[in-house]
């Protein structure tokens, strides 16, 4: 079956709209792109989507950007990948700079700082929810849970109790993860 091949401007527009109007991070964005690229437009197959999704999860950095690069590359090659990554990041990055500038400019306003204080507290809760979401899918069964706790607890203790920096912790995790089968 021959898949439709969009123009670069059309491809960029799809990533621009979905990437900059979907809140909640990577997973909602990848789900929205699945509906748009696989189900609605037929630009990639479900198998393409699954491969890109799997590889995005083992690519360093922000998973959703790797996913966008991969599926856009499948559709229009490297120029599509570059356009998709730029379309997803640049408008949101401009907004992030404006918000940072705004937060700093309002620093002397006690009313605004009260609102910002509330959001800063929410960030702490959000970071702990990220920890929860990273750990919970790796639990289940005594052996799997024990393995997860060794990696999670070991990294936490190494950093918190002994002040080990992240790179050695990650390097040890890679080696131990290769040697200790699930």
């Amino acid at each position, binding site marked *: 079956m021959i898949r439709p091949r969009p123009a670069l401007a059309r491809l960029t527009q799809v990533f621009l709209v979905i990437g900059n109007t979907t809140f909640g*991070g990577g997973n909602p964005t990848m789900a929205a792109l699945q509906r748009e690229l696989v189900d609605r437009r037929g630009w990639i197959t479900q198998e393409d989507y699954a491969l890109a999704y*799997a590889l995005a999860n083992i690519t360093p950095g922000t998973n959703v950007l790797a996913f966008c*690069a991969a599926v856009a590359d499948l559709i229009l090659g490297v120029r599509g990948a570059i356009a998709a990554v730029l379309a997803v990041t640049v408008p949101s990055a401009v907004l992030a700079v404006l918000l940072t500038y705004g937060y700093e400019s309002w620093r002397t306003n006690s009313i605004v700082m009260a609102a910002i204080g509330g959001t800063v*507290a929410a960030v*702490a809760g959000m970071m702990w929810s990220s*920890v929860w979401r990273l750990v919970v899918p790796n639990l289940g069964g005594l052996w799997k849970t024990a393995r997860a706790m060794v990696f999670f607890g070991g990294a936490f203790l190494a950093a918190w109790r002994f002040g080990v920096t992240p790179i050695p912790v*990650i390097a040890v995790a890679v080696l131990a993860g290769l040697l200790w089968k699930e």
Partner: protein
Amino acid sequence: MNILLLYLLLLKATCTSFSGLASLPMVRADFVVERHLLTDRQLNTAVVAGRTGPGPNGLYLVSVGYFVGGLPGAAVGLLAVMTPAFFILPMMYWIGARANSPRIRGAIRAVVLASAGLLLSSSLPLARDAITGGLSLAIVIVTFLALCFTSVDSAWMMLGAAAVGLAAKLLRI
């Protein structure tokens, strides 16, 4: 700070993490603890700015770059966020077939779990800075529970927390 060094430090953070906020421990170690270019409060603000809007979670690095180097810093922050995404292109062609290898997947899971441990460790000083009383503690707990056990969007939690902080100030709670 030299803009190339800023890019390389932010790139180091993105290249050694596997999700948006997982780069936070590296950023805190380099910019707050080692080089004193950011305070914990500024790092918190950067995370808030990156998460209040749409787009990938890793965009808080753009705000970190802005704090350290102004607009050029923000630009290299964006570049550091985008760069690792293109590592997937050779992977698609050459190692796609090995993505389901149990050994590779086991190593990836180990890195994800270690990242979670590092994230917990680096979040504790930030939380100590953020929790200033009973109300902020309540916001932390409610946000954690809502994001773990409901499908509410994190942006709504940010806006809700801002509204609660504002209301508390106006009502002098």
